[in-house]
């Protein structure tokens, strides 16, 4: 423990009530089934909290929750998904001060922390609006040489594993998570910065997002990522937050059930993201029907 020893005389008049940081699985906040936790310090080395150290079993539980949520979430109307995502942005904005403080604990200046939170809210709003537009941009009516109606529509690929990027704890997380779920996928995220990520999960939990659409795990990525990459009921994996070595191992494990692998798509989270993170997690379905009387 790095907390300073304090004399009894220094005890505050009112003791602050600390938050217990747990995991976010299936809409609930359980501790890791392994009972493990790890210490999270601020940038000066002062104790902040004990975060849950997720296990392989937690990964599996999260995948089960995400799969269970997939049918319902992908079946919502795009308009409804857009509304829920916009609601998330509202909740995020409402907790602006809290996120600024948590980002400052990771070492950011006040100004940088505020810039990041604002960018994260704006990014989320931007993606929210894509819910009912991406199909018109990525889909098509195809002029086939015969008496058929032929229509291609983008559909969510399923359960997506996400290794959240490091460095920009909130903006990075938002930039990989929003494009995954806005189109109807569900996600299991291995967070980088545990406290910011779990506070973000609290935002999700209060935004009418159905249980299980997003599941957040905290703990060492090297330990958790291979289980996610090798899981046979995960359809895609975003390796944004993986080191070169870990990404290689995950990409190989992902071949086991031919997951769609997102890698090398750029990590400048302040840049215009374009549609590539959405389209990389979409399947094109083409439907044919004869035309006749």
């Amino acid at each position, binding site marked *: 423990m790095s907390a300073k020893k304090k004399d009894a005389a220094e005890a505050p008049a009112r003791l602050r009530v600390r938050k217990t940081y747990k995991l976010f699985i299936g809409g609930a906040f359980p501790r890791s089934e392994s009972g493990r936790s790890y210490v999270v310090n601020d940038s000066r080395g002062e104790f902040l909290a004990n975060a849950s150290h997720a296990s392989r079993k937690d990964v599996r539980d999260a995948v089960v929750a995400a799969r269970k949520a997939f049918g319902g979430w992908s079946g919502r109307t795009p308009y409804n998904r857009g509304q829920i995502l916009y609601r998330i942005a509202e909740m995020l904005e409402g907790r602006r001060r809290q996120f600024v403080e948590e980002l400052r604990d990771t070492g950011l200046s006040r100004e940088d922390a505020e810039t990041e939170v604002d960018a994260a809210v704006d990014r989320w709003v931007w993606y929210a609006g894509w819910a009912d537009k991406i199909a018109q941009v990525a889909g098509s009516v*195809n002029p*086939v*040489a015969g008496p058929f109606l032929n229509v291609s529509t983008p559909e969510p*690929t399923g359960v997506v594993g996400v290794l959240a990027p490091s460095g920009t704890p909130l903006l990075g997380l938002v930039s990989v998570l929003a494009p995954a779920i806005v189109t109807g996928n569900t996600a299991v995220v291995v967070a980088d910065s545990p406290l910011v990520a779990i506070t973000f999960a609290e935002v999700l939990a209060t935004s009418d997002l159905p249980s299980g659409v997003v599941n957040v795990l905290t703990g060492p990525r090297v330990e958790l990522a291979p289980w996610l990459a090798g899981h046979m009921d995960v359809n895609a994996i975003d390796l944004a937050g993986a080191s070169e070595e870990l990404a290689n191992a995950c990409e190989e494990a992902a071949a086991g059930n031919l997951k769609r692998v997102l890698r*090398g798509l750029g990590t400048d989270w302040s840049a215009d993201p374009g549609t590539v993170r959405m389209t990389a997690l979409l399947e*094109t*379905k*083409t439907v044919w029907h*004869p035309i006749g009387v």
Partner: protein
Amino acid sequence: MMMSDELFEYAPAPESRSVVRIEESYGLFIDGEFVSAKQTFPTIDPATEEVLAEVSEAGAEEVDLAVDAARTAFEKVWGPMPGRERAKYLYRIARIIQERSRELAVLESVDNGKPIRETRDFDLPQVAAHFFHYAGWADKLEYAGYGTTPIGVAGQIIPWNFPLLMLAWKIAPALACGNTVVLKPAETTPLTALAFADICRQAELPPGVVNIVTGGPETGRLLVEHPGIDKIAFTGSTEVGKRIARAVAGTGKRLGLELGGKGANIVFDDAPLDQAVEGVVNSIFFNQGQVCCAGSRLLVQESVAEELMTRLKERMATLRVGDPLDKNTDVGAINSAVQLATIGELVASGEAEGAERWSLECELPERGFWFAPTIFTEVAQSHRIAREEIFGPVVSVLTFRTPAEAVEKANNTPYGLSAGVWTEKGSRILSMAQRLRAGVVWANTFNQFDPASPFGGYKESGFGREGGRQGLEAYLVR
């Protein structure tokens, strides 16, 4: 059987082979020239087991040469060439294919075993159309939404079921986007790819833009693992696809996979049954069932199952199995002894696991590789014939009661390539199409293809799409 007695007797109507001149041996097509390799292997006519030609087997040295030629052509000629010029080369190729279509159709039927009616009326028109379609994209990439930067050198590995059509699906979009290619045709069907090399020469395509390396799995491995390749495109089995995905992991190579399937063809009780029967026949006996998107699981609503089976057997009794070059033939030869053995093994497992087999009684030629069209009923979802890709003229029939059950059963597979729905109810078609997890859904039709229509799978049927605007994405830097 009674029904087969009713089959009209037709006089044989064989297409003449004289339109094709098959060489005794073939080299590899590298940098615009045919070069011989140290090793060769025979390619045979699966309908007669006659050796057609000796074909070169590309080793490490030849694969290096082909990749180098493709790299040079990419950097010096094809990459910098304006799209409108690339387009004109592709239009030329499309025209030459149309001009030589009869020759190519016969050659394909002889090397592959598929009926001339299919190569003539389906494969060749589709091949030409594919080049024609992508020719027009070459100078319009900026409107497609995927950028305009080619990836570089593409290594392309194609299967034996639609040899020239799969070549077209691979080469046309790659070239349209400004890439150069090294393509490996399947070991058992190299001849039309080599004829295509000659077409490239007739079209005066710059040397090195298209390179054809023939060979077996070892040649394929050399191509996949070659550090000079920027993009791998593979069509074939899911098993090999996974192996390729593992080999490519961590190399930064782009990858596109079009793999196996176990398509569900779903017939509701309100379907127009005669049309549905035609659709079922087309879905599983087209190309001897050697089609990745075949409707190899027939899901029939319980109330019409008996009637549909009766009509299906009646219709099957009119199928003519035999000489691929006979214009009356509906079902030709299985492509190889290996594939015939695979089909036989899975069919035996179906019988052993308790499914009921019905095979068309028909005379099969003594030589060559043949399998009579076959139906399995009393199939359980746990049976291997309901789960594994047979890749032959064998359909597994399962029944269902409700639309929800049909969806559940149809999606209960690691594959996700194709599905069919037969019903007269429009809203049901749309809801089924929405809930089926497959890359292509044919409603009241089956096995339709078009160069403008994206094709490719969900889940373990692979990733990426071929065809249409969406088909450009695989060959452009994202």
